[in-house]
């Protein structure tokens, strides 16, 4: 199940993977200017979500495809409830 909601300056995409993942995003062309990720998933350590959002900002989707997995691996971030490709898919579709 999924949906796209237009509101404020952010476009929001929600999709149920193993857990619900919601991505609110502001793009300028191919560049992600702002992103907020929320849902009922688990990320360890929890504070890593803020870092993840910061990492994504001002990157192009193509850059992310190359760099996101490496960033998560290097930071020893564990995600339960969705996969990195799920997040990339939502970002791309937003």
């Amino acid at each position, binding site marked *: 199940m999924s949906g796209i909601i237009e509101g404020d300056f952010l476009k929001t995409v929600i999709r149920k993977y193993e857990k619900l993942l919601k991505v609110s995003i502001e793009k300028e062309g191919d560049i992600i200017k702002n992103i907020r990720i*929320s849902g*009922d998933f*688990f990320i360890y350590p*929890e504070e890593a979500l803020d870092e993840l959002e910061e990492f994504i900002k001002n990157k192009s989707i193509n850059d992310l495809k190359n760099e996101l997995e490496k960033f998560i691996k290097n930071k020893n971030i564990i995600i339960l*409830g969705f996969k990195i490709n799920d997040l990339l898919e939502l970002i791309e579709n937003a």
Partner: protein
Amino acid sequence: MLRILRFHINDPFYNMAIDEAITKCVGENLSPPTLRLYGWWPRAVSIGYFQEIKEEVNLEFCKENNIEVVRRITGGGAVIHTEGELTYSFIVKNDGKYVPFDIEESYKIICTPIINALKRIGVNARFRPINDIEVEGRKISGSAQTRKYGAILQHGTLLLSFDYSLLSALKIKYEKLADKQLKDITKRVVSLKDLGYNISREEMAEILAEEFKKYFNVEIFYGEINEFERKLAMELINKYKSYEWNYRR
């Protein structure tokens, strides 16, 4: 030795503050491994660390019905805490002794004595990854885990009875299901009362304590919150009551 904190009822903010305080104290060797059994009053909605409060909670309904709202330090979904629910928290050092380092596996491990407790009273429950316990495909228990301060905290709920009208406190964000929201959720959730079991929270808490003792093969003792934990909880309670914390997303 596993310390058991007997079933007790606290306000939502203190409940979350004491869970975090015990976690820090266990990590710093100021407290023993602990199983805490508790309830909530006033009623509350707790939301997961990564959830957006305004998206998850019907704040107007909560205000009208004296339901408090608090954000947890753990991920996972929004939960309604009522007098029909027994909440547990299991807190141990993150040293691999009780609970494996693998997080997914550890959910299953910590849920096993809860499943055993349900089986003991005649309920055929099973673990459903990542973090649920189900009976005949309906959720009876959900848990959430964090690892910080050198410790593991897993807290979760066990539904003894449930007032389904309180589901209005939650916004189920599957917009496409909105018109049949209640019907769908009631099919997915079940309480012991729904299954024909009338058991008090105190009785269930005792059974859980015994099953944790058996499963982890550890001696238990019934203890109290210590001064380190109490003092820290009184500091942390301000965080859990704050707008900055609860509305951070």
